[in-house]
């Protein structure tokens, strides 16, 4: 961290008194550490998105197209006609303010325009001006002209929302700020205002199949590298199947699992688990990314990037699809994939080959969450687990926003954790399950230039971790989201040093007793396990 970075003590001195100025007069200051850099032209161009150019948010001239205002207003009109959510959410907010302190960015920054209601009002004020009769009255009606100042505010605040949907839980009308932000970002994209941390992964993903731009041989190398590591740790030889036609199951994971740490240990976890149960599955180098930064760009981009999943399942002739630990990927797979890229009528109803359990909740999409799959294995006594191997870990679980508020996947991961770990502690109830706090860096905001805002937005989550760290000595924050795994370590180092971040399947695999394995002295990370008498239990 650079020297100008605020210390935690400084950062937490937050003034919640809003400015005396009328919010309808746009003011935005692109302060270092609180915004993300613009999308690089070559990536914007590669995706055929409008207005590729060199620019930065701090420039006074954003090099907008001459008719940018009309483009935005036409875009708004189109979306008002296509999304009931958008029209309704523009119309019915009563500004009761119940959402205000539910936003991690508001709690961590005190910036009144980070109250979810205000984030929406930034858009609503323009909606009122151009799409309602009362809007002609101007400020009195809460309406304002669309000008560059307003557009800059949109950019700042729509890229200062992680689309976590926590506020929506508390809204009496279920107004969903993620929906507002998604539409807001779509509008910004129409005139070429996007951020590189989103647009480069999207461009990579469109070309290579994954966000990191890893090409097929790199994909294979990574998987083989993981297999070698596993052999070293367990003595078990694994040959990771890639693009294998006729496999029963296509396994989709976020690319960070095979290219970033601590995600990597979760990948090791999956591979070990599948080896132990003899699962007939395949990775795909083409569909080598379940994550979908299209979700942070536009509805169209979600569909463009996600098309490969069903296409690949069909090409490989698998029966059904299993999905790894990833948050926003699961929002896409659960709430968008079937509608956008379905119907998946060429696949079969998912049935666990080990337990015979029919996953009726995935009857139509044919895609099962790894935690659902594994919880079913454990419940049916298919795994031999030695939880004491995780005794050096005092574990808590962070509900990732999307599995929490788009699926309601709460008990499956907890069931696995409780079986695989002897020391599991919940964070306070206002900060878990449907009330979980975002890592502060989701929706494409997990970039280093945005570090101050990430530390601010992540404060509520970190503070809850600190609570269990102080009280129970928690030293591992587990989660089922690749963005969490990428960004929580930085957050922990800043607010709660001494807490590592890991995946649920990493912990499971630590505890998984594999037939023919050598005695394990370290966990998947190479950390020493506690050498107490192994209390092997059949789960």
């Amino acid at each position: 961290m650079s020297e100008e970075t605020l210390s935690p003590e400084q950062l937490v001195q937050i003034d919640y008194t809003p400015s005396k100025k009328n919010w309808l007069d746009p003011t935005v200051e692109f302060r270092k550490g609180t915004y993300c850099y613009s999308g690089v032209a070559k990536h914007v161009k590669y995706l055929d998105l409008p207005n590729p150019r060199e620019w930065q948010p701090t420039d006074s001239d954003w090099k907008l197209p001459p008719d940018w205002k009309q483009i935005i207003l036409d875009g708004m009109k189109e979306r008002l006609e296509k999304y009931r959510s958008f029209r309704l959410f523009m119309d019915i907010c009563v500004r009761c303010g119940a959402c205000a302190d539910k936003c991690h960015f508001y709690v961590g920054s005190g910036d009144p325009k980070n109250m979810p209601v205000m984030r929406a009002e930034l858009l609503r004020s323009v909606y009122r001006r151009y799409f309602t009769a009362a809007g002609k009255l101007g400020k009195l009606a809460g309406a304002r002209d669309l000008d560059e100042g307003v557009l800059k505010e949109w950019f700042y605040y729509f890229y200062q929302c992680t689309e976590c949907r926590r506020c929506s839980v508390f809204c009496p009308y279920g107004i969903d700020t993620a929906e507002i932000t998604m539409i807001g970002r779509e509008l910004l994209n129409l005139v070429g205002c996007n951020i590189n941390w989103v647009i480069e992964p999207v461009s990579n993903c469109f070309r290579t199949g994954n966000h990191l731009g890893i090409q097929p041989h790199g994909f294979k190398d990574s998987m083989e590298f993981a297999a070698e590591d596993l052999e070293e740790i367990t003595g078990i030889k694994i040959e990771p199947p890639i693009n294998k036609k006729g496999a029963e199951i296509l396994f989709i994971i976020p690319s960070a699992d095979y290219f970033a740490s601590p995600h990597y240990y979760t990948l090791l976890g999956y591979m070990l688990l599948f080896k132990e149960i003899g699962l007939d599955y395949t990775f795909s180098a083409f569909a080598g990314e379940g994550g979908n930064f299209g979700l942070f760009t536009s509805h169209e981009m979600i569909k463009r990037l996600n098309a490969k999943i069903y296409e690949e399942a069909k090409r490989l002739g698998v029966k059904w699809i299993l999905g790894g630990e990833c948050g926003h990927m699961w929002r896409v797979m659960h709430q968008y994939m079937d509608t956008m890229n379905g119907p998946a009528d060429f696949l079969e109803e998912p049935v666990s080959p080990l337990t015979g359990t029919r996953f009726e909740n995935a009857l139509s999409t044919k895609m099962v969450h790894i935690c659902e799959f594994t919880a079913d294995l454990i419940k049916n006594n298919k795994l031999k687990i030695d939880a004491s191997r995780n005794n050096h870990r005092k574990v808590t679980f962070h509900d990732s926003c999307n599995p929490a508020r788009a699926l309601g996947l709460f008990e499956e991961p907890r069931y696995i954790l409780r079986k695989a770990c002897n020391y599991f502690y919940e964070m306070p109830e206002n900060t878990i399950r449907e009330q979980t706090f975002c890592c502060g860096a989701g929706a494409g905001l997990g970039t280093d230039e945005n570090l101050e805002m990430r530390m601010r937005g992540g404060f509520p989550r970190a503070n809850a971790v600190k609570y269990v760290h102080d009280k129970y000595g928690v030293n591992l924050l587990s989660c089922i989201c690749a963005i969490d795994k990428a960004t929580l370590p930085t957050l922990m180092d800043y607010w709660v040093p001494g807490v590592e971040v890991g995946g649920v399947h990493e912990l499971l695999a630590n505890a998984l007793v594999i037939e023919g394995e050598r005695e394990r002295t370290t966990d998947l990370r190479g950390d020493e396990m506690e050498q107490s008498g192994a209390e092997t239990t059949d789960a």
Partner: protein
Amino acid sequence: MAAFYSLILVLLLSIAGYFGGSAAGTFFGIIIPYAAIAVFLVGLVYRILLWANTPVPFRITATCGQQKSLPWIQSNRLDNPASGTATVIRMALEVLLFRSLFRNTKAEIKDGPRLVFSERKFLWLAALAFHWTFLFILFRHLRFFLEPVPGCVLIAQELDGFFQIGTPILYMTDLIILAALAFLLIRRLADVQIRYISLFADYFALFLLLGLALSGVVLRYFIKTDISGIKELAMGLVTFSPAVPAGIHPIFFIHIFLLSILVAYFPFSKLMHMGGVFLSPTRNLANNNRTKRHINPWNHPVKVHTYEEWEEEFRDKIKAAGLPLEKV
């Protein structure tokens, strides 16, 4: 300033009602109420149809409890409904009891730093109290519009005056609605955050409702107005043979004029949350996304990068890595 302007506007409207009613009874007692009802009905239907005819491309349910997945995991049917029935129950609790608002907490950073959450139920309580008493009062007013007055209306009246305080007997709902509205107004003014987000329209709705309630209270408890004339006027309006009888107190015209403004303003304002709450896609859809395919009526085709194109681009690398190719 927004609060001040809206207060002034409601005062001006009241004055207009007071003097206008005396000077032009037919206009304020008949024409405006009829016009207001017409605007209300047309506007309401227009807005609801506009919303209802706007597609719901994606099923974006916000889940607030355990999903229905494996049979041995207890799912939360109310907060994560998987069926139509459960969704109806979720909606009913939302509409009738404001369940989400009930979750309200306050988050504050205390020394440590510790983020501390405390209960904040007053917003929920005041909102619930206001909406229910408003409905109750509307229902009670049926005695002006129906002859003979139905038994249930009389019972409602009896219940409302259960404690038999004063003459005319004090209605509990009158106290509650004034207290609730006062709370909502004071909250808007006193809480700096809420004041920051409040618009003219937010204060206007509150002052209008307060004016309406206060003029009603004045009519009943202070002026103790003769209600036979008012009933005659009301019956005339509903039977489409309107006439304004002599001797109606001018305060009554404030009451009916503010009501007319409220009713006519309703469809163009945030008050339409009454209709919108039923249509919110995050709440009124079951979380059965993976079980049942949701159809998007405008599911446009998009440009994708196909497997063939991918294989073509990376052919050499795929080959070198020993991965299988479709076209060798």
